[in-house]
């Protein structure tokens, strides 16, 4: 049937119409040179089994559906958390279009960054001229307070020297001599996006704090959120610090940048860590990183150059938040306020309300190393049992830390940690050893489709659900959000499994 103007249907229903299913059938049979349905079915079944799993895990060279990106995105993300900062990517321009697109699709917010648009001639002669002109244009046009430079793999392969280039650009008058231009080399063939975060964070802190070190501390505590894509988290952090009356600096605060109000005016640089606060960070009492694997070089730098104590503490779940607050109390001598204790009690109360649906449930998870540790720790507190833990960009240090957490819990005994594996490996794991639910980002939806295993969306990117990134996942309140997503995914699935009238709806309970 052609469209009915009173009930226009788009792709979701249009292609279910008989004239389209007929069109698909004819195209398939007459023109596609397709394999027989039986052959497709046979191979499809084969991909679900142990034989396939073994062949799949024997891969040495091919990566299919990775669970990691490349460095410059992490670098851009770190840079965007500073006031008035424009990321400048030295290299090919297409990368920047991808980076901006990816972040915009996740946050549904603008994302500004420029490129030096290097092409063949720059490949031959190097990108110095592109840097000189690019700096001058970006500075004049977009009036940033800081330009943070990172690289694409093109610039890395040809060996552009950022430090020297920036000096040259300043000498050429592109930007004032005293204008802050921190930089980080971010080759995409080393590490992943979290490596880029670390490199850029170190670059920015070392640039801004140059010559600022004083003899005595300013009494503040620095916090580094890491590659954390939940805008609710920095707000939650600030709220908790406010309750504890702690003077702090968040180093790279992207929460306002990626969650600006719609008031009819476009603001190019909303929010962010004030540059002078970041510069003063070298005089703080201590630095607390909320993630370990996005900050190793940065923490090393802070320890050795600023001579400052650093700690890693992930305020996830009950114990994680307990430890975090106790760490803060220890560092500042300030007590943990009653209000936070009440909130703790609320989270525990929520967990005792829902635990029965989660206890003993087997789950699988993939994502960035710190996120995995945080979420697994929380789910262990509920008695859920991790089975497959896959971290494409995790290292042996991470594996050791996570294994210790698993060993501590009676619920962590069945888990296997897979490093350097991708989502096609994960698919084999889910098919051969099914679980009750799995945790992942939007790319996991293909696995949900293939395996029918319920999926809880936690991580980055989340493209296909709205506003999940606005919530907090840290602290006691964040714990309630995580719990909500997990338990209600399980309950939704239970309803889906009990909704056939007269057949399975025996268990279609009103009260759960």
């Amino acid at each position: 049937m052609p469209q009915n103007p009173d009930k226009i249907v788009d792709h979701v229903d249009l292609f279910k119409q008989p004239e389209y299913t007929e069109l698909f059938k004819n195209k398939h049979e007459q023109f596609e040179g397709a394999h027989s349905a039986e052959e497709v079915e046979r191979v499809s079944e084969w991909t679900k089994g142990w034989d396939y799993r073994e062949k799949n895990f024997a891969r040495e060279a091919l990566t299919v559906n990775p669970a990691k990106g490349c460095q410059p995105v992490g670098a851009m993300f770190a840079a965007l958390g500073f006031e008035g900062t424009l990321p400048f990517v030295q290299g090919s321009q297409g990368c920047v279009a991808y980076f901006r697109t990816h972040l915009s699709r996740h946050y549904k917010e603008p994302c500004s960054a420029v490129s030096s648009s290097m092409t063949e001639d720059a490949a031959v002669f190097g990108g110095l001229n592109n840097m000189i002109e690019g700096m001058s244009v970006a500075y004049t046009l977009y009036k940033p307070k800081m330009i943070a430079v990172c690289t694409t793999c093109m610039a890395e392969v040809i060996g552009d020297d950022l430090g020297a280039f920036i000096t040259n650009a300043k000498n050429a008058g592109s930007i004032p001599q005293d204008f802050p231009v921190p930089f980080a080399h971010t080759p995409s063939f080393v590490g992943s996006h979290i490596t880029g975060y670390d490199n850029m964070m170190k670059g920015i802190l070392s640039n801004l704090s140059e010559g600022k070190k004083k003899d005595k501390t300013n009494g503040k505590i620095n916090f580094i959120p890491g590659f954390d894509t939940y805008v609710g988290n920095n707000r939650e952090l600030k709220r908790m610090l406010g309750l504890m009356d702690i003077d702090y600096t968040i180093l790279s605060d992207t929460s306002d940048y990626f969650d600006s109000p719609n008031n009819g005016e476009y603001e190019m640089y909303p929010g962010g860590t004030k540059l002078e606060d970041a510069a003063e960070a070298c005089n703080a009492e201590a630095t607390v990183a909320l993630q370990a694997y996005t900050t190793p070089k940065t923490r090393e730098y802070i320890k050795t150059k600023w001579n400052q104590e650093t700690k890693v503490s992930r305020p996830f779940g009950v114990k994680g938040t307990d430890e975090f607050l106790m760490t803060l109390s220890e560092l500042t001598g300030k007590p943990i306020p009653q209000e936070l204790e009440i909130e703790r009690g609320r989270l525990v109360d929520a967990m005792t309300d829902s635990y029965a649906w989660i206890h003993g449930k087997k789950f699988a998870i993939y994502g960035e190393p710190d996120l995995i540790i945080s979420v697994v720790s929380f789910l262990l507190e509920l008695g859920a049992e991790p089975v497959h833990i896959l971290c494409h960009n995790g290292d042996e240090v991470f594996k050791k830390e996570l294994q210790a957490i698993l060993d501590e819990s009676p619920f962590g005994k069945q888990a296997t940690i897979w490093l350097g594996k991708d989502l096609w490996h994960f698919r084999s794991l889910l098919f051969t050893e099914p679980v009750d639910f799995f945790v992942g980002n939007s790319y996991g939806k293909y696995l949900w489709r293939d395996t029918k295993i319920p999926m809880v969306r936690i991580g980055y990117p989340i493209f296909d659900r709205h506003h999940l990134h606005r919530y907090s996942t840290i602290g006691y309140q964040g714990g309630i959000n995580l719990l909500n997503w997990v338990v209600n995914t399980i309950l939704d699935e239970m309803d889906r499994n009990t909704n056939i009238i007269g057949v399975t709806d025996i268990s279609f309970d009103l009260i759960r």
Partner: protein
Amino acid sequence: MTPPENKNLIEEHKELIKDVLQAYPEKSRKKREKHLNVHEEGKSDCGVKSNIKSVPGVMTARGCAYAGSKGVVWGPIKDMVHISHGPVGCGYWSWSGRRNYYVGKTGVDSFGTMHFTSDFQERDIVFGGDKKLAKIIQEIEELFPLNRGISVQSECPIGLIGDDIEAVAKKAAKEINKPVVPVRCEGFRGVSQSLGHHIANDAIRDHMFPRFDKAKKENTLTIEPGPYDVALIGDYNIGGDAWASRMLLEEMGLRVVAQWSGDGTVNELVNGLAAKLVLIHCYRSMNYICRALEEAYGMPWMEFNFFGPTKIAASLREIAAKFDSKIQENAEKVIAKYTPIMNAVVEKYRPRLEGNTVMLYVGGLRPRHVVPAFEDLGIKVIGTGYEFAHNDDYKRTTHYIDNATIIYDDVTAYEFEEFVKAKKPSLVASGIKEKYVFQKMGLPFRQMHSWDYSGPYHGYDGFAIFARDMDIALNSPTWGLIDAPWNKKEAKAKVA
């Protein structure tokens, strides 16, 4: 095309361009001013330079050759495995980004929404990635045996480190007895996606034409050629576009033997060469292959436009004119069948949309092709521009636009924002990187690359959806909530 009442509009717009350009350093201003102009009735092109390197540091919306080849041309071929050859990022950030719809079992006989990569590490850069590539092809064969071929989509490092992917591909193609197509679409090549399209087209020519020649010679073509065979090309089936177009072509009695490349297959890449006529929707990204087909086989090709009832009817008649009276009569029947429905759509939506204005900034064909669809709804295009057009695109654009339309080639974020602020269109229609910027300004916005996750927009079925979506965008009550009541003028007066 109606000339605007305001004769001074052209001058006014020229002034605006001049003002906006003031923000640049002089050297870059000189480069950018060649890309901005105001259309004057009767001129043979839009008077802008195009297909030139972007100015460093400007925030261009452009992509790269890899985006043009893997992202646009090759990626949608569903039964091939496309290797993003190089580091992990390019394929990861672009994974499933273009909504090229297809029918198939993903991971088994179709691979469209998957990301295959060689995930280059430092050692691959240092020692070269050719051995790894050969191994990858073997592994693909073992794990995805139903693939009909493999393409190697080069990322920046490949060309820089001197890998010989052609040699690897040639050897592998023999071993697996399937096409293995090396594509030199490194991101640093050319000035935009455009060279990637060209390189991808050339790869089709070099690797698929010989397969057709061989099949023809050995009489192993899988179709019996007929008088009404057409190939539908330059449609990437975003949101199902190509299917809505194919529907109409089939309804008028034509046989669509190939779709390039949305929902496309290797078989169709070969069969397409047996068509009597090539119908191209996106001229920019596939005109190269048309010229190659013309040169090699004397095959005729024509552009068409399936956006909006006015252009669809005209295109159906132009296509039919290439065939006999039977097809021509059928075309009239198709037009007659859908016209009342389209009239009803227009009757419903035009009163709600008439008098609105839109500024466009898109990619290959839409900056001109969608203008009549907006006009069918009473929406006037007051500015348009292309990310990666060539001069022939701007020549073709003149037939579509009104006097005094502002033209911006490879517009920078700064320019686009300034033009929009000055002209205050009712709607901005561009891409994801622009969307939230303009929405923050309180302006309705529709993505015209991905149809904002809706679609199809092609064909008669698509136009109904397009009309519905423009109504949703322009008449959403949310835009009226932006000003807080206590900040409104009357309220301020009361408070004072």
